[in-house]
């Protein structure tokens, strides 16, 4: 089966007059299989939006190619564009002066749907699914942020593209609206077989939504795995140490690599154990420092910790030859690392 998205040695360098060229994306290789929900994670400026825009043909790559269902975005623009719908980050994406219905018809035609009958049927279905049918005649500018985002997503889907790109789909949405959008994304992939690629800073959302994630940093791919595998990889090494009362920052320094937080008046240290610091050491050090230990337990890792960890490591190894390397002994081999 053909990959839905195939990215080959994709790079983008933005040239600036001042000579500070920005390498937003660097030799990216990636495939996304049909029907997957794929998450792009990474800090601000990691190159997620740039990657998506190159997939949409809005930004021309410096090198490399993007294929959408086999069509080269650079060379076969027309058919490639029929494969995607996109909602881009931080902008309206639709006309606020028009109502939801008018927007959907307009964008449907722009995207090459020629049958008005088909277009209207789809628009109605989308608006009903998103609970916007009753308000289809109101200008989108008067909608709440969540409703506006739903209209933008509906507009991206109006031509029924097999691939949907969503750049921070839940940005600025409240819990309820965010949940609606998420449920809908799952439905799109699971029930209608669409390939969904999204970027997000909400890692809990990525964890619950994405079949696969790619973690980017400075234009490079740090990891590209299924979400489950990535979580497994980190499972055993994270521990949580719960201490009674508030422990000052200097004392928690005895646990290198652990982060401290407060929970119900207790101090919770979370971090990774390894060769330098075993679970036994943890307990010893806590006792020696006269801390009142409540519990030591393996923490279920979440994507957020893994993310922070990978980004930290990438920073530490930046500049070193060979780039990032995870400790092969402590971890099952095979994590895809790009240097």
């Amino acid at each position, binding site marked *: 089966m053909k990959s839905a998205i195939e990215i080959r040695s994709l790079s983008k360098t*933005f*040239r600036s007059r001042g000579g500070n060229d920005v390498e937003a994306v660097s030799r990216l290789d990636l495939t996304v299989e049909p029907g997957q929900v794929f998450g792009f994670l990474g800090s601000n400026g990691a190159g997620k939006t*740039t990657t998506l*825009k190159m997939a*949409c*043909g*809005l*930004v*021309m790559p410096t090198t490399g190619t993007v294929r959408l269902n086999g069509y080269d975005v650079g060379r076969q*623009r*027309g*058919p490639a*564009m*029929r494969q*995607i*719908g*996109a909602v*881009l980050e*931080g*902008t*309206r*994406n*639709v*006309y*606020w*002066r*028009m109502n939801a219905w*008018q927007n959907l018809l*307009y*964008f449907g*035609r*722009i*995207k*090459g749907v*020629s049958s008005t009958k088909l277009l209207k049927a789809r628009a109605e279905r989308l608006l009903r699914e998103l609970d916007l049918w009753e308000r289809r005649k109101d*200008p989108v500018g008067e909608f709440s942020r969540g409703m506006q985002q739903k209209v933008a997503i509906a*507009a991206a889907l109006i031509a029924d593209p097999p691939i949907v790109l969503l750049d921070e789909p839940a940005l600025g949405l409240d819990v309820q609206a965010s949940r609606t959008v998420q449920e809908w994304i799952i439905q799109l992939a699971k029930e209608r077989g669409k390939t969904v690629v999204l970027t997000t800073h909400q890692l809990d959302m990525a964890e619950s939504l994405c079949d696969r994630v790619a973690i980017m940093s400075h234009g490079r791919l740090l990891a590209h795995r299924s979400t489950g595998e990535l979580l497994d990889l980190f499972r055993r090494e994270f521990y949580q140490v719960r201490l009674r009362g508030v422990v000052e920052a200097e004392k928690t320094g005895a646990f290198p690599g652990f982060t401290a937080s407060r929970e119900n008046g207790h101090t919770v240290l979370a971090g990774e154990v390894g060769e330098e610091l075993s679970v036994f050491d943890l307990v010893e050090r806590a006792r020696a420092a006269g801390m009142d230990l409540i519990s030591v337990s393996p923490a279920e890792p979440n994507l957020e910790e893994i993310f922070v960890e990978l980004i930290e490591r990438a920073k530490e190894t930046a500049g070193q030859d060979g780039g990032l390397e995870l400790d092969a002994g402590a971890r099952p081999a095979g994590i895809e690392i790009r240097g």
Partner: protein
Amino acid sequence: MVVAGTVLLNECQKRLIIMWSYRFNFMLETFMIGFLFVGISFFVSGGRPTPEQMAPALLGYLTWFFAVFAISDMSQGIREETQTGTLEQMYMSPLPSGLLLAGRSVASLFISSAMVILIGGILMLALGIRIPVRIEGVPVFALTIVGLYGFAFFMGGATLVFKQVNALSNLLTNMLLFLNGSFLTVERMPGWLEGFARSLPSTQGIDVLRRVVLDDLSLASVWQDGSLVWLTVHTAVFLFAGWGVFLWGERVARRRGLLGQY
């Protein structure tokens, strides 16, 4: 052909809907445009404008309005749509962007024509101005408009790359009112200014249009005296240069990621 028709209708529909949502502003603007004409006519004629004097002025003025509409549509419109992200959505269409932009231009022409008919009609009735409808005027008018849109594309392409062009285009359209010969005769300007004024969009078109429509000259005679030739050349240059600059702007914008907000 069917696709082109759909695109055109689609753009017209969108424009009308959006315009309708701004109907109050549009009414005010229409009123202001009409009022401005009366004001300037009074001023230029020393307080005693006659319908005969105002006819050529109105012809020029209405053409200027087409210019304003076309130029601001392209530069301001594009500027706004890069910010709202709708331009990026347009560029994600499988249809060629040239077709979509042509559709937009025709839609904008359609709307500006409606406004010109409205404003012109009211002014003619109210002030007793007579502008005869002469079939010879049609090709001259068409050449003028095509040249104007060529220039608009030029500005649009430049706006994609240089955001400041938008501000410049406002200045330019206002300047145009006094340089395209609507009210102030180009012949009476100092030599250097005349040359500049004549190279601007619409100046030559207005000149030929007046001679054909108001002075009853035949197309053959304006061709022979060179003014129609000059208009044709002028239009062709603006059209090709404009289209070229637009394509260039698109390419640069894709390279630098300027089709959207950054």
